[in-house]
């Protein structure tokens, strides 16, 4: 770790033009590359909040935690969110022992760490809706601009798994592996069929309960159909190790069930669609997190950490 930091410091000094004798006097300021980093990253006139901690032990890869639809980085990072009897600290805290680990706020996502879960003020709002490709472009710009050392193990929750998959297809040289945490499979619309897919999409995924933050025009909105098509028509998924984590308990929601679709059926078909992730690469372990609902990282952070470490261990170096 000390060596890594020293090398980063040297690299920073060389980049400055080699000022000679003063080298090594001051440590490099925190950046995406090293140190405790928690600030906005300017990507062409707007700011996206990025937080990183930990340093990569020899042979380890940086882990990028991609939150799900409407979720800010809080969905990964806050320790208060861990639900007993879960064992261990929050995912980034555990991973930071051996990895550089980062997460971020997409514009318009919810700060669930704050009272009332307001829209994030840490990232500049953008016009909504957006597609998965927009999200991939943005994340790539954030990681590149901040100098986060790749290639990455991408651990994506829910819709974040769809983004991770498209990211790997789009930037294969930057991806060492992917972990799909109860992720939204691009086969969900097919598995559900047109009518039930439309009901699920409109009543759940894109629901806008009046008087909530989701009714704010700046709130995140994703054109999921476009994202599914981008994944399907995009480049082949690269030959990197992956792992799949699957819940057993139903989605927890206060919304009424979508018309023509019971919650039980939705859960069953959502999990059936995980097969598509497993089939992406040979020898993909699927771990069923018994007793957990959709936010496996809150109920079993150890399983998310373990799956990420397994993929990291299988990744090329």
């Amino acid at each position, binding site marked *: 770790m000390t060596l890594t930091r020293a090398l980063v410091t040297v690299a920073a000094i060389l980049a400055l033009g080699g000022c000679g004798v003063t080298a090594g006097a001051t440590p490099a300021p925190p950046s995406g590359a090293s140190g405790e980093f928690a600030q906005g990253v300017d990507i062409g006139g707007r700011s996206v909040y990025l937080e990183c901690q930990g340093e990569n032990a020899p042979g380890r890869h940086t882990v990028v935690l991609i939150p799900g639809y409407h979720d800010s980085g809080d969905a990964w990072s806050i*320790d208060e969110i*861990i639900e*007993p009897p*879960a*064992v*261990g*600290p*929050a995912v980034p*805290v555990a991973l930071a022992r051996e990895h550089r680990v980062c997460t971020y706020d997409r514009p318009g996502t919810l700060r669930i760490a704050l009272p009332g879960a307001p829209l994030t003020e840490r990232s500049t709002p953008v016009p909504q809706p957006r597609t998965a490709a927009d999200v991939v472009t943005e994340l790539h710009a954030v990681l590149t601009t901040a100098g986060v050392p790749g290639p990455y193990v991408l651990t994506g929750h829910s819709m974040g798994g769809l983004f991770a998959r498209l990211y790997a297809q789009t930037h294969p040289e930057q991806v060492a592996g992917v972990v799909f945490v109860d992720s939204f499979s691009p086969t969900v619309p097919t598995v559900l069929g047109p009518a039930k897919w439309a009901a699920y999409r409109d009543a759940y995924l894109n629901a806008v309960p009046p008087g909530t933050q989701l009714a704010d025009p700046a709130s995140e909105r994703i054109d999921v159909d476009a994202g599914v098509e981008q994944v399907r028509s995009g480049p082949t998924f690269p030959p990197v190790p992956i792992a799949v984590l699957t819940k057993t308990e139903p989605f927890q929601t206060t919304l009424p069930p979508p018309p023509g679709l019971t919650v039980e059926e939705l859960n069953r078909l959502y999990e059936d669609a995980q097969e598509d992730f*497993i089939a992406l690469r*040979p*020898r*993909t*372990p*699927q*771990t*069923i*997190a*018994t*007793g957990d609902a959709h936010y496996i990282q809150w109920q*079993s952070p*150890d*399983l998310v950490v*373990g*799956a990420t*470490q*397994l993929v990291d*261990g*299988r990744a*090329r*170096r």
Partner: protein
Amino acid sequence: MRRVVVALVSGCLLLLTACAPSGGGAAPPATDVATAVDVGGRRVWLECHGPARPGTPTVVLMSGFGNAGDIWDVVDPERTPPPEAVAPALARDTRVCAYDRPGSTRNDGSVTTRSDPAPQPRTAQDWASELDAVLTAGGVPGPYVLVAHSFGGLAARLYAAQHPDRTAGLVMVDSTTEETFALLSPEQQAVLTPPAVPGVEQIDVAASTDQVAASARERPHPATMPTWVVSAGVTEFPPDFPDLARAVEAQRTAQSNLATTTLPGSVHALADRSSHYVHVFDPDLVVRATRDVLARATGPSSGGTR
């Protein structure tokens, strides 16, 4: 000469165990044990490696039918990059033991001579009782996390039910269940029953199944015990196995029922395209499962911030 050295090493282990300071801190130096222990007048070969950490369970590897203790040292040569085998990977930071059941076959194809023969066939209860005797005679400090492959899973469950205070957790590696054979036709069961060879391990499947089913009724597995069920995505059957599709579906059902009903609260990992020997094909997955059971068994105080 060699026996003298072994005896000295064993003595050191006993001293270290007796004098080990309580509490955390740096790992004590690993003391390798590789010796035959006496269980009721016959010898059983026991090996233990890796650092014993106060407050952390010892991992005990239970091989499946026919396999000696060295099966946990093997890795599928087609894995690239090659992962470390289960036993050495765990021994990096955990005390881990394995042993040769009488009549088991080593990786070189020879029937073990490190353990004395015993009358065959044997039952899961025989295996469980022998395990208890080996751990006691070997002075292996408990509690234990039992990592059990195939038929070893039946014995591990019996041991856990009979010694709940000494069992900290279970990892079932494509373990046999009370349904595994019951779900097969008599014709299919006959194909899977190997011919008896003198001196070579044999099992009494029917008696063992009855033992485990009765134990499960009387002493259901506590959902609070950290448990993983690791199942093979592909189940190996002999060529020309009768009604193969039904057999494959039966094993899938047996594994699912084991994870959801028989061992409630288990984490269930499915090893895609692995054979029955998941610990050989995907050792990193079995290691991950074992480490997780160890972490859950020792609780948040093992490093959690909650």
